[in-house]
């Protein structure tokens, strides 16, 4: 049990990072599409 909890404690952070990686990636693609649609610059 302790082994599982320790592994989870260490590995949960890269998993959360992966989720944020996906959220930011998808959101940025949307930003690019909106900027193109509105004919304005991305930044």
């Amino acid at each position: 049990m302790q082994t599982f909890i320790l592994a989870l404690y260490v590995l949960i952070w890269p998993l959360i990072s992966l989720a944020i990686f996906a959220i930011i990636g998808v959101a940025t693609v949307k930003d690019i599409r909106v900027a193109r649609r509105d004919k304005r610059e991305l930044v």
Partner: protein
Amino acid sequence: MNEENFYQFSTLTVLALLVAFYGGTYLLTLLIKKKKENTDAFMVSNHQIGFGLGAASMTATWIWAASFYGAATSGYTYGISGPLHYGLWGALMILFIYPFGRRFRKLAPNAHTLGELIHARHGSSSQLILASSNILGSIISLMVNFTASGALVSVLSPLSFQAGVVIAGAGVLSYTLWSGFRASVLTDFAQLMAMMAVAILIIPAVMFALGGPGTLSDGMSLLTPEQANLFSMDAILNQGAPFFVAVLAYAIGNQTISQRLFAVREDHIKPTFITATIGYGAIVIGLGMIGLMALMTGMEPIDGDMNNLIPQMVSMYLSPVFIGLFFILVIGSLSSTADSDLSAMSAIVMADVYGKNIAKHKPDPTKMLFIGRLTMIVATLIGVILASFSMDILIMLVFVGALWGAIVFPVIASCFWDRVTNTAFTSAVIAGLVMFCVARFELMPLVGVVGGLFELLAAVGGGVVLGLMAFGFCGRRVGVIFGALSAIVLAYFCVGFLRDYTVLLASLMAYGVSTIVCIGVSLMSSSKFDFSQIDQKVINYDPAKTASQS
């Protein structure tokens, strides 16, 4: 020493990695480069940054090289709870500025710096206190990041420390100089994606290279009872609490955060801040786990230097490809923060110094851009020089920390309470700073009545921090009640105890004294400020926009 303990890249390999990183980043900025940039875009991207880029930029800016080393050191020193006490509070710095940030944005939707808002509220003296603390903070940040580059390059290759410092300085300046904040935001996105990808791979890679979860379980026997305790008081008092106290100070005192606050589209502020909070926490706490794993395997940092922990672990257990990825991770983190610091300083000098105090009502946008770019060059030179000569900046660091602590309440109160005056703001900051120095450097012996009085003032400071946090999310009444109750409870526990933790005592005193003075002096005046004046005074500098605004 290096060749025996760390993996060594050849000079050619490390130069190729640096050229690939900075060359690629520079090429990326060519996508947005305009022959004639405008001032508002140069400072805040015309307030139109979307959620994805905003969250990426906020996260990348907040993660600097010291985040990894600090989190790993905390994990190695305090055990299980160590990485949490570094990463969690760092992440909350982003979250806790959010409610106040919305107010700043509402009061001054066209602002470029927090200093502009304070100038409209109080005038030059208060604004320049804020601006100078921002600039000092960014110079320190630049120096620390360039130092990290020098240390990394000298540890992992035959190149010298100075070479690493100069390459980082020249590389960051090259891609930030022309487009300013726009370049910073775009490259932050690429740098963060790279950093996250590397962190996602490296953390499990190190764990499984050590022998997997079973090795960690076996390593628990090497931990002291305090290190094995998730609620270790040692970790809370020495790592968590000082960080917690700094939560609001760093967020208010750092223009890199407020610049992004003013740049993100207003309807995207909330998701941007929440995503950045979680992203920062996950990456930094995750990399802090490498320090914890080092502790659990009984590893000793070379020369006792905690900054060697992560490079040592990576060198010992991972293949050269991962070491290359780690190299990019650190260079990416320090570069994203350094370019944000350059953009922040250029905006402060352009808007706060030139726009509000030199040009007054007739700022010339072309001249502003020139001043902004010149600021970046000068700041880079200062950062490279301070880093190259490994100058001792401890005193500067202490003063900036104190200044940031002392300005928190006056800045926030100025944006919510119409009674705060310029005199109240200035005197509160000065009083907070003076009392911080008295306690921090023990100019008066911390015993007897003096010790008790200082502890009571620190308890007030603790109540202010907690009260402001409650106020931000739950409103004025809850904030005041929670702050007052917290101060009373803290007073009970602090008296006779906190004097042994001088750094914490002094930091809390800066909050407490500045709050008491700010409230006291404000109450002596009967004048009331009309907040709608701020929006009228803080305007865009670009001629086309200014015309449409009027």
